């Protein structure tokens, strides 16, 4: 099979993994040889018409797989055409694209062939050749196979910036019904093992007793859950996410709306991907990690364990917590400012800096490009006191009014 055709098959097979991050690793450059650099923040080299960033060359080494996960295009019983790269082909594609400045690095995953160890060994080999034979200094993300041998994981962490193991489904029941070969407990066990190694390397780097502390995935680990394939509600998804963040120090939990695949399993007929739901979960995830919200508070903004699809989760929570408002932007503590709908963490910090020198007024918010329609109902300013905070009409006033927002509104579009 020619290289172009392989690339089409094995990129197509990799696109359901949402992660494309290339940030948060150690700083490197090629001034003393090799190829490439990493500078802390990631770079998106292109965007596809699905709005997703293309930062890494995201490929499967092979899409042959002996696992039969119903949601996956590459499952054993799928009719999808199969292909397999040689190690050298992936290496040359990565270097060639990198030299043309189209990518930050490689995100390599693979279907399970022969055995977990055999598959992991092939994946690790690509990273080894890139790092050792070509002095590649760009970003490498390797998908880790939970059951692979500890030596292989150690070597993967030596070359990779990030490792990931996908949780795939938020509940044991979901995993048992849709991914029979996967084991919830083994996945978490492997994540715990990664945390131990990542923290061990960080600790060693901090104390730096050796000139070259042992490296292990400096950009940490991440995972992904599919949204809408099983019956799990948002509460279950966010519950698993908080456990994963707190327990295994995930840098990111990605949520991927289950998307129709060209060869769907009978267990999961094609349906429009729940994109709004996915978006709300990301917003809720941000509130959990950076805004001091608990899972229970976020869920209180929705109903029956599901987030409000029409409103962002912070506004939805605020509507259920009107007793905590209005917040005086000139006096309230930072934690409370973070809870005001429409105020992001950066804006909050600028407001706190500004209010040391001036009494904040509505015009100041406008100058900071804050959405007044969203913020004013919940705040007191030097020249503003909100009205109608108790009123029943507040919710409808807060619903997004633009055409774009209307299009994003949740009546999930039927496919056709």
């Amino acid at each position, binding site marked *: 099979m020619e290289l*172009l055709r392989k*690339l*089409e*098959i094995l*990129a*197509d097979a990799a*696109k359901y993994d949402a992660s494309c991050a290339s940030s948060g690793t150690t700083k490197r*450059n090629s001034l003393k*040889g090799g190829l490439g*650099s990493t*500078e802390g923040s990631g770079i998106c*080299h*292109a965007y*596809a*018409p*699905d*709005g997703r*960033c293309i930062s890494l060359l995201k490929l499967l080494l092979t899409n042959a*797989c*002996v696992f039969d996960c119903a949601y996956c295009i590459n499952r*054993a019983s799928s*009719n999808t055409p199969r292909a397999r790269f040689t190690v050298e082909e992936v290496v040359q594609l990565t270097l060639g*694209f990198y*030299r*043309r*400045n*189209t990518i930050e690095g490689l995100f390599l995953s693979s279907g*399970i062939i*022969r055995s*977990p*160890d055999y598959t992991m060994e092939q994946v690790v080999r690509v990273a080894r050749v890139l790092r050792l034979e070509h002095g590649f200094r760009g970003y490498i993300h390797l998908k880790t196979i939970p*059951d*692979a*041998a500890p030596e292989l994981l150690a070597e993967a962490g030596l070359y990779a910036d990030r490792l990931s193991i996908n949780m795939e489904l938020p509940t044991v029941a979901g995993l048992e019904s849709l991914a029979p070969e996967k084991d919830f407990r083994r996945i978490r*066990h492997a*994540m*715990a093992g990664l945390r131990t190694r990542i923290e061990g390397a960080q600790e060693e780097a901090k104390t730096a007793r050796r000139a070259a502390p042992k490296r292990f995935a400096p950009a940490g680990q991440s995972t992904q859950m599919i949204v809408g394939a099983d019956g799990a509600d948002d509460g279950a998804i966010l519950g698993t996410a*908080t*456990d994963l963040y*707190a*327990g295994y120090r995930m840098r990111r939990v990605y949520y991927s709306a289950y*998307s*129709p695949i*060209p*060869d*769907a*399993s009978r267990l999961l*007929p*094609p349906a*429009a991907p729940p994109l709004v739901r996915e978006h709300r979960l990301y917003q809720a995830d941000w509130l959990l*990690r950076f805004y001091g919200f608990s899972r229970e508070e976020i869920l209180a903004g929705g109903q029956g364990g599901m987030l409000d699809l029409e409103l962002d989760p912070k506004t939805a929570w605020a509507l259920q917590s009107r007793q905590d408002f209005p917040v005086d932007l000139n006096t309230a503590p930072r934690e409370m400012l973070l809870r005001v709908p429409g105020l992001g963490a950066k804006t909050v910090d*600028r407001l706190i*800096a*500004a209010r*040391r*020198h001036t009494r904040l007024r509505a015009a100041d918010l406008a*100058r*900071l490009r804050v959405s007044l329609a969203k913020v004013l109902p919940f705040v007191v300013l030097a020249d503003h006191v909100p009205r109608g905070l108790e009123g029943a009409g507040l919710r409808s006033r807060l619903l997004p009014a633009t055409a774009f927002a209307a299009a994003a509104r949740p009546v999930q579009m039927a*496919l*056709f």
Partner: protein
Amino acid sequence: MPALALRQGVAVTLPGPADFTAWRQAARGLVAAEIPPEQAEWVVAGELPGLLAEAPAPPPSAAPFSVPRAFLDQAEIAIRHSDRERFALLYGLLWRLTHGERHLMQAATDPAVIRLSALVKAVRRDAHKMHAFVRFREVQAEDGPRHIAWFEPDHHIEEAEADFFVRRFASLRWSIVTPRRSVAWDGQALDFGPGGRRADVPPDDAMEPLWRAYYASIFNPARLKPGAMRAEMPRKYWRSLPEAAEIPRLMAEAPRRVAEMVERAAAAPNPRPQKPRHLSMPPHVLRDMPTPIDAPADPAMALAALREELLSRPDLPAFAARATQPVFGEGPVGAALMFVGEQPGDEEDIAGRPFVGPAGRLLDRALAQAGVERRDAYLTNAVKHFKFTPTGKRRIHQSPDAGDITYYRPFLAREVAAVAPRLVVSLGASALTALTGKKLPVLKTRGQVVTALGGQPVFATVHPSYLLRLPDAEAQAAGFADFVADLRAAQAHTQGL
């Protein structure tokens, strides 16, 4: 002489459009000469002349003055903006900073400060887009490959951003041509030259078909969101992105592709599914797999059976499902001392071993001082799974309730019976309750030997985590000494038995 030129003031001619050093020096002179912003005009050599009569700018004063670092940092970036007013904006801010508004930079809602941060943001974004969207084409020259790119930045960032490409592609020979500047790297040094034309860059590249195929294949037609794409990759960049040529086709075909998927609906499974050729689990996986073992008389076998049972019991309390793994006891069968704690914590849950977290490390220190070898003792917990509440980035220990202790009691009893120690040491209230079945007050019971439900002698003391929670260093030192004394007493007790 035109009437406008009668305005009083000075005109400063800067040598280049983003020459911060020159601007800084001139501005220093203007401030020293007390020339207010409205009387200063800034012109770039070779660009449109100004309206003011050409008057020499005053020389920089001998005594430099200080301005906030935040201003300098932002000014150095903002000066690259293509806005003709940038020099005047910066000088206006400098004037105010040196004339009674030292804290101006913190006035985040001041219009001039907001304008400055808008310029900084625009320049940073432009730089970021340059890092992202420069596309090199490889040409074979006589002396090896060269990489050449055409790019059209909005602002004067070519010189400032050249270093980024040096750090990344130091081993290549490359040049980036823009309408205003060209930057070339020969592997040793940078060379800046005049601007060029798109035609200076080769029209295609051997890998371009592969890159376009990748771009087309990674796109998911079921998630069409062209607005999100254009927000981050505006059309003005498309001209220099080879993959952008695929966009119209991908967007046009997306609805049909999705319709086909839906129409096809669920496909019949492949009659010849992928089969594991040699699929076998590696030995360490097999080793950890539960294997059914009948309750045997041999204590080591009994402990192994207990382990298997805890791994696969269907009736575990709900919180156990959120733990990584059950944490079993550790140590020799027949140990003289068996320590029983409350439950595994965060680090024990991750490692799968008891007493390896902060409390475990404290216990290790106390055991060492008391002259007890940890490896000679058997250590375990009353509850075998970590119970926690996740708060942000940590899992906070949640004490087991009476129901949890009751649930795990039979496992603990079997463990004590199998280990058959001379003395069980209960650490803290939960362990004491689990062992004796009674809610005994720990601080009143400590140092005494009570009897476990199974008849074994139990020596009560505090849990090491209690020592970690004591309020001050003095109390902690005293508490630690008492704890060590308890451990010594327990060991002495086993020797007297």
